[in-house]
């Protein structure tokens, strides 16, 4: 369609455009009130819808946040309770292991102490008996007469005393020696008592540490019970940190799984065929290799689950010990079988690669293939086989970060969802406010298009208002 067809007089463009402009302006002026109404109604509709959406989003975000908080605190309480329970178990085991020997230890201590007391009593120094002969000497010395008799008597006494003194000193020395021997014999007992006391002290310190840990956990637990904001923040941050750490570890595990895949994809083609495809680009051998790896991861998951390292499946956690042990054994056997299969596949891969290399060599030249060093050619093969055997077990441990990621994902995704909903609510509110203002802007823009008729209208209405006013003003004058 040519725009010239819109012109009334195509040979006279200015006149045609002027007529078109006048017609359009007249139409727009006539439809002014209705167009203003339409603009206002549409903008009001959008603004109201956005406001409702914003309200709903804010409300939902708050409800979700509250729900997240409840779940987070419940999880935190559960974890704290588990920690407290574990600490109590440790204390119980310490008490069972160490303090069940306490009566024996106490009896031993008492016996040692009694022995030490007895020995102490025995080695006490007995004072020599008071010399009875001193009073006899005093009586002899008071004799005034008798010539040399007192002197002789005194000399005899001196001799006897000297003899008795010597005997007493000898006995005293013997006695001292005996007491020293007793004291010497007491030394091991003292050491034994000291050692026993040190042991008791050590055990008491361990108990004390555990008690302090329980106190800490109890404080956290109480804060969670009281729905403390700090506790909630701490739990949220802990969730994010756990998620990131678990993600990193899983990324490393993914690298291991990729290497594993590369190791067994080629030999799997020997088993299921190299030209078989599941979809346009998905080879059956690749899927088979992937299935083997996923089975290894699953067996590892069941193994750690049955060992109670993880708790992803409540059904396994609630099994009785006998059944759980059977499951653990089954998972371990499957894992070992898969590791052996993978190891043999790694060997087969090496053989296939060597075979292909030999073929390529034969195809490229007719010369005899170069002889390889036996040891050097066996090292990669052995390495591949070892890797094939070890990687499934290493992959089994991915269950631990997986559990952490699953648990932390609820917190992380919940918090992110709240933020996204809030951002959307803000955008909705902003758009609503913008549309409310836009209504006025559009109305004014519309009026700009019909500014000439509006000016005429204003002049005409001004004249209409002025004429009656002037008529009103002239009336009193004419009367006068």
């Amino acid at each position: 369609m040519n725009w010239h067809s819109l012109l009334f007089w195509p040979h006279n463009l200015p006149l045609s455009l002027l007529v078109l402009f006048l017609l359009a302006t007249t139409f727009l002026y006539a439809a002014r009130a209705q167009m203003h109404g339409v603009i206002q109604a549409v903008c009001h509709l959008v603004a109201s819808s956005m406001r409702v959406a914003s309200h709903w989003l804010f409300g939902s975000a708050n409800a979700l946040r509250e729900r997240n908080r409840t779940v987070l605190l419940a999880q935190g309480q559960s974890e704290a309770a588990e920690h407290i329970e574990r600490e109590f178990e440790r204390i119980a085991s310490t008490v069972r292991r160490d303090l069940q020997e306490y009566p024996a230890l106490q009896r031993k201590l008492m016996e040692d102490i009694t022995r030490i007391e007895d020995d102490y009593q025995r080695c006490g120094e007995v004072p020599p008996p008071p010399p009875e002969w001193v009073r006899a000497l005093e009586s002899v010395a008071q004799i005034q007469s008798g010539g040399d008799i007192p002197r002789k008597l005194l000399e005899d006494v001196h001799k006897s005393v000297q003899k008795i003194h010597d005997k007493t000193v000898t006995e005293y020395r013997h006695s001292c020696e005996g007491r020293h021997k007793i004291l010497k014999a007491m030394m091991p007992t003292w050491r034994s008592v000291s050692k026993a006391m040190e042991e008791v002290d050590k055990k008491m310190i361990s108990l004390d540490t555990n008690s302090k840990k329980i106190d800490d956990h109890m404080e956290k637990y109480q804060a969670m019970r009281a729905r403390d904001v700090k506790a909630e923040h701490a739990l949220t941050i802990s969730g994010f940190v756990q998620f990131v750490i678990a993600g990193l570890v899983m990324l490393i595990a993914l690298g291991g799984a990729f290497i594993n895949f590369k190791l067994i994809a080629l030999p799997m083609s020997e088993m299921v065929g190299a030209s078989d495809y599941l979809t346009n680009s998905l080879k059956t051998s690749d899927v088979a290799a992937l299935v083997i790896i996923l089975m290894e991861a699953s067996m590892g998951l069941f193994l750690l689950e049955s060992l109670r390292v993880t708790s992803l499946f409540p059904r396994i956690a609630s099994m009785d010990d006998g059944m759980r042990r059977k499951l653990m054994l089954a998972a371990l056997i499957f894992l070992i079988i898969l590791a052996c299969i993978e190891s043999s596949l790694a060997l087969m891969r090496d053989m296939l690669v060597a075979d292909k290399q030999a073929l390529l060599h034969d195809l490229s030249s007719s010369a005899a293939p170069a002889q390889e060093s036996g040891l050097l050619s066996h090292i990669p093969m052995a390495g591949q086989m070892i890797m094939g055997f070890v990687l499934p077990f290493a992959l089994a441990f991915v269950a631990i970060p997986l559990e952490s990621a699953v648990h932390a994902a609820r917190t992380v995704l919940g918090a992110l969802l709240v933020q996204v909903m809030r951002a959307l609510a803000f955008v909705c509110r902003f758009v609503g406010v913008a549309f409310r203002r836009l209504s006025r802007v559009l109305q004014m823009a519309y009026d700009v298009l019909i500014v000439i008729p509006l000016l005429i209208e204003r002049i005409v209405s001004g004249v209409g208002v002025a004429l009656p006013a002037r008529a009103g003003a002239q009336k009193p004058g004419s009367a006068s």
Partner: protein
Amino acid sequence: MKKRLAAALAVAAMLSTAGCGDSRAHTQAVYMLVDTSGTYAKQVNKAAKIVSYLLATLNPGDSLAVAKVASRSFTEKDIVAKATFDDRPSRATLQKRAFKAKIDAFARHTEGSAHTDITGGLLQGAEYLNETHAGIKTIVIFSDMEEDLDRGAVRDFPIKLTGIRVVALNVTKLGTDNADPRRYLNRLAHWEARVRKAGASDWVVINDLDDHLDRILDSR
């Protein structure tokens, strides 16, 4: 319970449908025509090297046949060696070795032919390739593309090469081409037009055998 059963059946059906995909559609089939007329009889060793390249490049499940272009080539008797490689890589390697041995024997005892029936070879190749049901079908012609038919051989009718790639290898210039290059260009243009009219999916000419062998096979 019924809903779960239905869901399980749906998943099983999806898997079985996925599993029933045509595996042959991902394979390649190559039919190589080796011109043995005139001076080309002396270039069979070059053709053997190209066969070696194809053997090294083709995967388990692919098919390869090598035939000579003789006076009347629309016959299985001219096929020197053919094989559809086993799905298992180890078996495929053994088959490739055997194939290589046959080609080496052929290269040692080649006798030149009096005429060059390229059209007959193309028809035989198309028949072989269509029987393989491979996803990618290629006819490789190791020749100067100068057809010289035996008396009595009728080849002036439309041929059918639907979905087949045709690769002309080592198209040497004849003595007359040097005098008038238009002969060479016209010859190639004639074959391209004929091949495309027959429904071929592609027409490729490779004269640099050292650097552009990778263009023989379609690497989609």
